């Protein structure tokens, strides 16, 4: 496999960034990493993952859909879309890389969402294999091997070098473009690192969590479960879980009057919010129980029912770490399957 010595990594970043935008996970403050546009001198975070997920690259929190100019009785619609520039995201974890294939199922099915597709077409995803998973990790539950992450190019760290493996045509083009930095390297040490990481995976507290009791055929069994009342009891109805989640993709469309015209934008929305389903003449989800149930039924039952068994969760553990009341999909799964 082709590799680069870790001592030359930032030299490589400088070269990539000279040609196109490069984003890397870096420390915003101790214990909190985020993706930022790479500039010389910026360092990769030592954190396992970023606080916000990588979905922002393809499905940003807000984006403009169209502009309107209103004069008297007439309205002009302005298509403000522009082809986006090529960009590279480095250091995406296996869980987040899988989240893109889940988002693809929503946004790239007919009718294709051109806003999402535009970014997806122009973004190259370079993943990084995990070696030090956290206690909140449970990607294995969803069939993800974090030591062999997806994306256009997978990277592996054996302690001394970073190995590059192209998975897609786009990935091959990328590896080709940086070939002058790469040399052939043997992977013995890498295999050891991988074996060790897999052993740790098996020892994680959530290693035994399984999707066996979930899926599209469990609708009535779980929808009517008496566990929802207790599970949702302390839920604050905030959007933290939704917003840090790499697969949550519900959105709202709103208009903003700039004073010079109307901007129609879309923004993340949360099924946990009280007004998510509110209509002029009523709200079908009146209490937090229904809203809470929707979020987990969507991930564990509805999504697999509509997407050939694929679950709407990648086990990244962000909701476990960030929910203000520490209620999360793991607790929900365990409570639901306990008869």
């Amino acid at each position: 496999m082709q590799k680069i010595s870790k001592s030359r990594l930032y030299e490589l970043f400088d070269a990539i960034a000279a040609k196109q935008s490069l984003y890397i996970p870096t420390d915003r403050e101790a214990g909190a990493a985020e993706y930022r546009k790479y500039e010389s001198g910026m360092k990769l975070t030592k954190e396992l993952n970023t606080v916000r997920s990588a979905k922002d690259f393809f499905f940003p929190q807000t984006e403009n859909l169209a502009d309107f100019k209103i004069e008297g009785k007439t309205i002009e619609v302005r298509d403000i879309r522009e082809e986006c520039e090529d960009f590279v995201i480095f250091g995406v974890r296996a869980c987040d890389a899988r989240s893109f294939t889940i988002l693809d199922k929503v946004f790239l099915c007919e009718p294709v969402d051109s806003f999402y597709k535009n970014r997806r077409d122009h973004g190259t995803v370079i993943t990084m294999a995990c070696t030090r998973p956290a206690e909140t990790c449970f990607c294995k539950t969803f069939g993800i091997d974090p030591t062999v992450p997806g994306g256009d190019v997978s990277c592996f760290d054996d302690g001394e070098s970073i190995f590059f493996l192209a998975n897609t045509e786009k990935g091959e083009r990328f590896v080709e473009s940086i070939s002058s930095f790469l040399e052939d390297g043997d992977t013995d040490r890498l295999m050891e690192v991988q074996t060790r990481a897999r052993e740790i995976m098996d020892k994680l507290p959530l290693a035994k969590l399984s999707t066996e009791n979930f899926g599209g055929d469990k609708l009535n069994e779980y929808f009517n479960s008496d566990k929802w009342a207790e599970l949702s009891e302390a839920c604050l109805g905030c959007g933290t879980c939704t917003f840090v989640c790499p697969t949550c993709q519900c959105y709202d469309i709103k208009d903003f009057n700039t004073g010079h015209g109307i901007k129609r934008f879309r923004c993340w929305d949360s099924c946990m919010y009280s007004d998510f389903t509110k209509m002029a003449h009523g709200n079908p989800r009146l209490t937090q129980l229904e809203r809470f149930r929707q979020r987990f039924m969507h991930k564990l039952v509805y999504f697999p029912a509509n997407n050939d068994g694929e679950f709407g969760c990648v086990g990244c553990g962000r909701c476990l770490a960030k929910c203000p009341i520490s209620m999360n999909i793991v607790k929900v799964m365990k409570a639901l399957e306990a008869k």
Partner: protein
Amino acid sequence: MNNDTLIPKIGVVTDIRQDTPDVKTFRVVAPEGGKVFEHMPGQCAMLSIPGVGEAMFSITSSPTNKEFMEFSIKKCGCLTEWLHAMEVGQQITIRGPYGNAFPVEGDLRGKDLLFIAGGIGLAPLRSVINYVRDNRANYGDVQVIYGSRSKDDLVDYQEIIDEWMADPNIEVNLTIDNAQEGWDGHVGFVPNYVKELAPSTSKTVLVCGPPIMIKFTLAGLKELGFTETQVYTTMELRMKCGVGKCGRCNIGNKYVCKDGPVFRFDQLGELPDEY
């Protein structure tokens, strides 16, 4: 870049009819004339006044109308209040068509049809009724049972009298909730009227109206011997995208905007009875 369904087109309001004290019917055409897009009966469109809001409405005109689309809209919120205040010539934005349709060229062909509507619930069925009238040879008996709170609240009443009731090929039964001056027709709630009329169980039923009316009508139909596979309805929930992506109009794993709004009752029976 390809067209994106989220970027709307312009529609011009060319006629506004006050149907009831709180329902107006709007005629919409493309700025260059003709319809903005084609649809099938039961499908919906997203109408918007930029800066005010956007919402889903069923298309009440029949696709056999080649000149314009119509929307019967009840005033009940911010956007609909604004729409009601419009004058002829006003432009709005429109996108669609969204959702499935009543299977007028599928299961409904050749069948005896019974339409049951309450109040503004006539809006989506009017599209089907006029489609069936315009393709009369393809369907069996057609009966319409329609009721509202009062005579004034019967949507499209003039069209019903002038055209439907004058049409020897369809039977129209009207009812209002309470007796009133100038009304010598039937008085009583729709579900009870359906039971009184006791239509033949050979008919396929299309029902739309307030949830409580639908609930009692379905129960009445079952008493008469109808099965859930014979009864269709159309649903409404809050929508933003119209294409099953924004994630809010689902019942179980079905999105009303994409998998609906038309459902047969046996299909709804497989879904949770809450949201």
